[in-house]
C-alpha cells in the first residue's frame, strides 16, 4: 500500500507544476465572486422555493419513522456547548430559570419557562434530520407545536416571518434563524425539549430547539431563548434571515 504514497519532495515538485494553473483558477474564482453572477445563481433558490410552494402540498407531512428506524447515535453539529457563564449556570440548574421570550408583532408578549413549555400539549415525532453537508440521522423529538405558542401570543396579521434567537455565540454574533408562516404553522414544526425519550442533551440544543422538518439542519435553531414575530427580515442581523445566510450565503429557503 505504501507504494502509492507520494514522497513529500515529489508533492512539492507537483505543487510547482500546479502553480502554473494558478491564474486560470483565480479567474474561475473571480467569476464565482462577481456580484452579477451571484445574483443570477441566487435565482435558483427563488425558483426552488417558489416551485416547491406552488407545486407541492404546503401542509404535506415529513415522513415519520418507527423506533426501529432510529439512528444508533444522533450526531450533533454546529455549537455543542454554548460558551459563557450564563449558559453554564442555566445548565447547572437544569434550566430552571431559562426563559423563552415571545415578542414582536403579537397581541400578548410572553415569557415562558421550561415548565410552562413542558406543560403545553405535546407532539412526538420520529423524523429524519438532513444536514446541508449531506449526512442524515433519524431521531425522536418531543415538544410543543410552534403554532400553539404563536396562537397563545396572538400573532398579528401583518406577521410574515418568525425569527428564532439562540444563546450560542459563533464568532462575532449570536446564532439565529427564521422561517415563513407556512413552515411556522406546519403541524410538525415544534419547539423540542426531548430527544429519544430523554431530556434534550446540551450538544443537541438544550433546553429548547426548533424542529422544522422539511428544511435542512442549519434551519433547526438550537438553544432558543426568544421567538419573534416580524413583518420583514431586513432589520434582523444582516437581513438575510439567518446566521449562516448572513455570513456565507447559505440559502434562506433550505427545503432542498
Amino acid at each position, binding site marked *: 500500500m505504501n507504494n502509492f504514497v507520494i514522497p513529500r519532495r515529489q508533492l512539492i515538485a507537483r505543487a510547482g507544476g500546479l502553480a502554473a494553473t494558478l491564474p486560470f483558477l483565480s479567474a474561475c474564482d473571480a467569476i*464565482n465572486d462577481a456580484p452579477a453572477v451571484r445574483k443570477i445563481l441566487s435565482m*435558483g433558490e427563488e425558483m426552488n422555493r417558489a416551485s416547491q410552494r406552488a407545486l407541492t402540498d404546503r401542509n404535506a407531512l415529513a*415522513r415519520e419513522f418507527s423506533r426501529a428506524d432510529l439512528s444508533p447515535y444522533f450526531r450533533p453539529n454546529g455549537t455543542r456547548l454554548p460558551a459563557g457563564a450564563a449558559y453554564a449556570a442555566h445548565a447547572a440548574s437544569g434550566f430552571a430559570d431559562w426563559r423563552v421570550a415571545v415578542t414582536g408583532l403579537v397581541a400578548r408578549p410572553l415569557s415562558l419557562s421550561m415548565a410552562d413549555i413542558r406543560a403545553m400539549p405535546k407532539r412526538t415525532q420520529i423524523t429524519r434530520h438532513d444536514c446541508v453537508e449531506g449526512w442524515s440521522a433519524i431521531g425522536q423529538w418531543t415538544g410543543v407545536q410552534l403554532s400553539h405558542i404563536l396562537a397563545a401570543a396572538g400573532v398579528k396579521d401583518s406577521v410574515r416571518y418568525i425569527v428564532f434567537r439562540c444563546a450560542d455565540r459563533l464568532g462575532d454574533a449570536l446564532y439565529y434563524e427564521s422561517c415563513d408562516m407556512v413552515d411556522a404553522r406546519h403541524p410538525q414544526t415544534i419547539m423540542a425539549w426531548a430527544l429519544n425519550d430523554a431530556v434534550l442533551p446540551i450538544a443537541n440544543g438544550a433546553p429548547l430547539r426548533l424542529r422544522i422538518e422539511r428544511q435542512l439542519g442549519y434551519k433547526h435553531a438550537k438553544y432558543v431563548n426568544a421567538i419573534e414575530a416580524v413583518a420583514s427580515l431586513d432589520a434582523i442581523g444582516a437581513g438575510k434571515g439567518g446566521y449562516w445566510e448572513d455570513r456565507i450565503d447559505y*440559502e434562506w429557503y433550505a427545503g*432542498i
Partner: protein
Amino acid sequence: MAEAKTPVASSAPAPLAPVRVYRHRLPTRIWHWVNAVTLLILLMSGLTIFNAHPRLYWGEYGANFDRAWLVIGSTADSGYLRVGDWRIETTGVLGRWTDAAGEEKTWAFPGWSTIPTSYSLADGRRWHLFFAWVMAIGLTLYMLWTLLRGHLRKDLHVRRAEWSPRHIWLDVKDHARLRFPTGEAAARYGILQKLSYIGVIFVLLPLMIATGLTMSPGLNASAPWLLDLFGGRQSARSIHFIAAWALVAFFVVHLAMVLLAGPLNEIRSMVTGWFRLPPERKDGA
C-alpha cells in the same frame, strides 16, 4: 439527420468531392453545447458538495458514526479511498493533496476539480442548484423535441434487426478495432451509439434529476414515493454519485470516439450541422 445534400449512390465509385450530410438539427446542436457546459458545472460544483461530507451510505440515514460504503479520507500523512473493504492510497489526488499555492489540503476532491476552487459548500450549492434547473429544463425540452419531431423515431429508435446479439457484437468489434463506418452508413447511428445516447437522455440524466430531488427534504414530504423508489435518502445520494460517474464515463468514451473518428469533422458537424461522410473503404466493408 441524414438528409443527404448530394444523393449517395453506394454502388457508384467514390465521388471526388466529399459528400456532406446535414446530420444534426439546430435543437440537437444547441442542447449539446448547453448541456456540455451545464454538466461540467454540475459535476464540479457537485464535487464541492461531496467534499462537505465525503462518505456515502445505503438506506435512509447515515452520518459519521454509521458504516459508510465509500469514504474518501485522510490519515496524518496520506489520503485514501475506501470502497467497502477495499482501500487504496490516493495521496496527492484524493483526501490529501497540495493546492496551487503549495499548501497541503485534506478535502476529498482537489481544488482544481471543484467549483469554487476553495471549499465553500454554500457557493457549490448555489452553482449546483441553479444549473440543475438549466439541465432539467433543457433535458425536458430536448426530450419533447426528440419525441415530437421524429428524432427519436427516425434516428435513435433501435430496429428489430439491430437487437440481434450478432449485430451488437459486430459493432463492439468494429469499435474495438477503431473501424468506424464509412460512406452512407456513417450518416446513421450504430447500435452502440443509439444505446448510449438513449441511455444518457432517457435513463442517466432523468436518474440524476430524480435522485437529486430525493435529497430535498421539502420534496420528500410531498413525494415520499421517490424515497421508496431509491431506498431512502442516503441511497438516493449514493445513486446520484454513481450516476454522475457513469456520465463522466460516457463523456470519456464520447470524447475518445470523437478524437478517433476525426475530431474536426465531428466537432464541425455539432456546430454547423454538416458532416462529411468518410469515403467508402475499398474492401467494401
